[in-house]
C-alpha cells in the first residue's frame, strides 16, 4: 500500500546476455549491475521504464513497456476513451511534463 512502484514491466533474460554492459551504461537508475560473467538485475524496482536498456541491448535480452510516466496525459487519454499507453501530449503547450 502507498507504493505503486514495486513492480515494473522490465523483463531480463540473463541466458541471452553477452555481457556487453551497454545496459549498465544507459540506465539512469543503476538497475543493472556488472556481474562475474553476465549483467545482473540489481535494482528492478528502481526501473522507470525509459526503455534505454532494451533499445540498446544487441541480443534482445531485455524487454520493457517503455513510456513517459506522465499522469496528465494518461488521465486525459483515459477521459477521452483513448488508450492510456499510446497517448501522450508531453512537450506541448498543454502538458506539465517534460520540463
Amino acid at each position, binding site marked *: 500500500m502507498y507504493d505503486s512502484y514495486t513492480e515494473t514491466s522490465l523483463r531480463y533474460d540473463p541466458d541471452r546476455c553477452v555481457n556487453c554492459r551497454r545496459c549498465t*551504461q544507459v540506465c539512469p537508475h543503476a538497475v543493472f549491475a556488472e556481474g562475474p560473467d553476465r549483467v545482473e538485475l540489481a535494482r528492478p524496482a528502481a526501473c522507470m521504464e525509459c526503455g534505454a536498456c532494451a533499445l*540498446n541491448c544487441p541480443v534482445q535480452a531485455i524487454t520493457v513497456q517503455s*513510456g513517459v510516466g506522465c499522469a*496528465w496525459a494518461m488521465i486525459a487519454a483515459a477521459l477521452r476513451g483513448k488508450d492510456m499507453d499510446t497517448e501522450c501530449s508531453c*512537450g506541448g503547450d498543454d502538458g506539465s511534463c517534460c520540463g
Partner: protein
Amino acid sequence: MDTEERTGSRCSCSAGPQAESPCCSAGTPPAGEVGTTTSTITSADRLDHLLARWGWNRNGHRVEPGLYRLGSPTADSPVFASANYTLSFDALRSALAGVDAWILVLDTHGINVWCAAGKGTFGTDELVRRIRAADLASVVAHRKIIVPQLGAPGISSQEVARRSGFAVEYGPVRARDLPEYLTTHTATPAMRRVEFPVADRLVLTPVELVIALPMFLAAIVLWFLAGPVAALAAVATILTGTVLFPILLPFIPTRDFSTKGMILGAVVALPFAFSFGTSPALPTWAGALAAAATLLVMSAVVSYLALNFTGSSTFTSRTGVKKEIFRYVPVMAVMAAAGLLAGIALGVSRLMGAI
C-alpha cells in the same frame, strides 16, 4: 525489431514533419553547411533560459539543427550530439569550454534530450539523418559520436552503427561532467545516475505554477462567494501543489505522489479548516462542515497536482503512475465532490438565511 516493438508504447504526438517549426523554416542552412558556436553563455542566453524556465513561448527555445564547430576542431576532434533546445545545447557548449569539438544538433522540436528521446524525436532515425546531412563521414576521420546518456531511450546504438557506420559512445548524464569524462572516456557510476536534488526540483516549479495559473480564477471566485480567507486557501492550495510539493518531495511520507500530496494538502489545509471551524459567525454544524469541506478539497487538489508532478520527476515508471491513477483519482474525485457539495450546502444555507 526493437524499434517496432517500442512504437506501440511511444508517445504519438508531434511525430509529424518538423519543417513548419518557426525557427527552422527561416534560414535553414543547406545540407553540409557548418555553423559556428562558442562556449560563452551571454546575458541574452541567460534571459532565454529564464524565459524557458517560466514557460514563456515554451516550444520556441530552439537552435538551428545541424553541425556546429566549437573552437577549432579538426578531423580528429570529438563529435557530440545534442538537442535543438537552447538549454540542452547551451549546457553542452558551455561545459566544453576549451575543447575543440563538433556538435551535431538534432531536430527535437525544441524539446530537451531526455524527453525527446522518450518520444523518439531524439532518435535513431534523426541521428542517422543528421549524420548523413552533415556528411559527418567526410568531416571527421574517426567514426565515433558521443551521445548524452539520456538520449539512449531514443537511440539504438547498434542500429546507428549499422546504418551510419558511426559508433555511439554514451557520455555522462550531465554535460558538466564532460571535462572529467573526456580524460578517460569512462563515466563513473555517479555520472551515470539521475538524481532529483532540490535545485533540479526547484527549477521546475515556475512552469508548474504557470500551467496552474487558470486555477487562480477559483481564488477570485471564492473571494466573492466566501470571503478573503477562502480565497487565500485557494491560493495556498495551488502554491502547495506546484511549488511546495516539488521542494518537499523526498521528505513527505509514503512513496506514491498522490498520497504525499494528500498528506501535504491536509497539513496546509489545517489552519484554514481551524479558522472556518472556529469562526464565531458560523453555528457549530456549519463551522464543522466548512472545516471538513476545506480539508477534503484542499487535500484532493494538492494530491492531483502532486500526481501530475510524476511527469516532471526523474524516476516514476509508467506502470506505477498508471497504478496511482486507478488507485487514487477516484478517491480524489469523491473527496473533491464531497467537499464541493458541503460548500454548496453552506452557500445555499447562507442565501436562505439559515446561517
